[in-house]
């Protein structure tokens, strides 16, 4: 309740949440509103928005319904964002936790490993990975996850380092709790709020990354994602602005809402700021 109330106090966060919910709703309702495949060529190409009933947002280069693509694409974009973030967390959290908790040589080794990943520019690495695995949803998700876990590991490590000498952790050690229990029960729950905040931003970044990959022609050709739509529309950006405009706005709104929600979460979960506000 306390958390919800604090979250609701942040107007931006609330707006963000509403936008995000509508996008999720769009994703869920897509198959109901547009049961036909978004790939289906249903009208003449380059039909401008608002010109014909049933084609509110017009049609694309091949006469496919933009509105349908946008709604089906919401699902794909969100899925790629969520799954790649989850995978990145699954790599970054344990690595950071172990490095931060044990410190010393283990920390050194893991951090060198992390630094090593950070030494290759992210986007370049993502491109190479997708090219190697050949574009598909799986390879894109993996590539995004592989380039985005280092910040997670660093954050978790920093949190663990600051928490591992907290008195309650030492108390837990004194009463004989094992390392794994301490990591999972004592420290991890207390690092969750920054992780959640970071994760919400990572979903946004992943959606941007996917669209950039698609733009370079490294998208999965079987799924209609927003990135794909912009990538496909870029060659006709001059004659059909709406083709890249709507998915661009969709990405913008999603990333925006995720950021707003992230900030809201940060405020609501960060007890220090909350205390200052009182």
């Amino acid at each position, binding site marked *: 309740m306390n958390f919800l109330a604090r979250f609701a106090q942040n107007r931006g966060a609330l707006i963000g949440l509403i936008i995000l919910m509508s996008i999720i709703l769009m994703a869920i309702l897509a198959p109901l509103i547009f049961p036909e495949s978004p790939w289906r060529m249903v009208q003449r190409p380059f039909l401008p928005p608002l010109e014909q009933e049933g084609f509110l947002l017009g049609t694309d280069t091949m006469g496919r319904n933009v509105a349908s693509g946008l709604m089906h694409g919401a699902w794909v974009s969100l899925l790629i964002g969520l799954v790649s973030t989850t995978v990145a967390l699954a790599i970054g959290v344990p690595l950071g936790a172990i490095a931060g908790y044990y410190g010393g040589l283990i920390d050194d080794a893991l951090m060198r490993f992390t630094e090593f990943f950070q030494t290759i520019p992210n986007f370049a690495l993502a491109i190479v990975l997708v090219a190697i695995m050949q574009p598909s949803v799986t390879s894109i998700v993996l590539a995004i996850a592989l380039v985005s876990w280092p910040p997670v590991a660093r954050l978790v490590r920093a949190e663990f380092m600051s928490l591992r000498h907290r008195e309650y952790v*030492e108390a837990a050690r004194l009463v*004989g709790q094992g390392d794994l229990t301490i990591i999972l029960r004592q420290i991890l729950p207390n690092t969750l709020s920054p992780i959640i905040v970071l994760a919400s931003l990572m979903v946004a970044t992943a959606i941007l990354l996917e669209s950039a990959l698609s733009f370079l022609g490294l998208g999965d050709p079987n799924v209609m994602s927003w990135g794909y739509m912009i990538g496909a529309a870029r060659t006709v950006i001059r004659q059909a602005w709406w083709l890249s405009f709507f998915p661009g706005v969709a990405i913008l709104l999603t990333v925006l809402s995720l950021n707003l929600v992230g900030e809201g979460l940060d405020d609501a979960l960060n007890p220090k700021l909350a205390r200052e506000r009182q």
Partner: protein
Amino acid sequence: MSDPVLSIRGLTLALPKGADRRYAVEDVSYDVHGSEILCVVGESGSGKSMAANAVMGLLPKGVRATAGEILFDGQDLLRLDEKQHRKLRGLRIGMIFQEPMTALNPLMRVGAQIGEVFEAHNRLTPAERQSRALELLIEVGLPQPEKAIRAYPFELSGGQRQRVMIAMALALEPELLIADEPTTALDVTTQAQILELIADLQRRHGMAMMFITHDFGVVAEIATRVCVMREGRIVELGAARDVLERPQHDYTRALIEAIPGNHIPESRYLDPPAPLLEVSHLHKVFRSRGGLFKSSREVHALDDVSFILAPGETLGVVGESGSGKSTLGRCVVRLERPDSGTLALSGIDLSSLKGEALRRERRRVQMIFQDPYASLNPRTRVGMAIAQGPIANGVPRDKALKQADQLLELVGLGGVADRFPHEFSGGQRQRIGIARALALDPELIVADEAVSALDVSIQAQILELLEDLKHRLSLSLLFITHDLRVAAQICDRILVMQHGRIVEQGSAREVFLNPQAAYTRELLAAIPGREPSLASA
């Protein structure tokens, strides 16, 4: 008496909505005259600093004055706009803050930070500012002032930084100096020096001074007059001697009585049958990790420490920060591993245990921590926090939780097991910490500064509780503190540590009343407000 320099009349400051009470201070009136030190005393939350903030125009966001006036030089400070107020700050009203470690800009040289005071009020040329800064540093007694003026804050000790703060506050010879808990964060010997400096400067410059503190010892040391505050209201206001010797109000009386050290109990410690804990030749060196291209640095935290602790005994370990007293405690509970030496608990050497063996022996020594806010996991219900130890040692969950209930009862907090730590006050949390330490039925408890973060009245209650439990459960206690008065009150014997070595050990009475080591004497002399009778007894 002359006209007051500062006169606060019926001041009421409202807190923002949602705070735990409506007013930070309510209907507060007091004067500060030239050449006097008014001590504003109170525990945390009493609102003692708020009026001072209002004087400076530095009220926290959301706090605003709803009634009263603050008269300074004929004008009401509450009615000044920011610009007018700014012109007074630093020039006519100076202020010293509590935390010397954070109150100075870490990225600016000391000289520049002092020079800024002149700059803010367009005084002197840049070159003159530096030479004036140097004079100020000399005046506040900073060693090697020529070097210090070019130093960054991190290169100075806490006491030295506080001297810099004082130099800054004095730079333009303000008529009113406000000192907000200026010595609280300092070691006792440093505190004594700073208090002396402040008193001396105040006398020499004839300033009016408002000195905010929680410590009646400090009050006794420097106050001309005293204003005691509680929950935003003044409970007592009068000349220092009157208030200290004949407190009118119950609250004042309780506070003064709560200060430990007014009597030293007879030692109950006789020849022990067999020591519970025998520590011999303990060494611990901390190294900053060197690398391929950099050398390592070493700090001897424990240097050949040996002592014994008898069953049922309370052994105090006293020292200033950096003395190694905390490292000693952490070695005893084996949060640190000593480099060499032995730690025999009932004959079993804990010093070299590792892994599973260490985990098994752990429950025999438990610890009570200093910070009641950091010692409980904010996401674990307190009952569970207590039960975790027994559960980890194989007690079934239900039984452990039931036992936790009983322990909470024992420390005076019945029926709260399913609450979270943030629902408790500092003192209550410390009780929960004690219950947690007791849950494993340990033979020895190490209390590391267990009461130093608490208000003095709470401190007394916790000490009482410890004493009581110790008797009821026949515990042994290793009591680590920086506060000799607390140690003297609760301990059978005391070890005095400095630079990782034990410089003196003996019964509490011996150490307190007849100190042998020069350092112990220095420590004792530095305690603010020691009654002469006690010192000479």
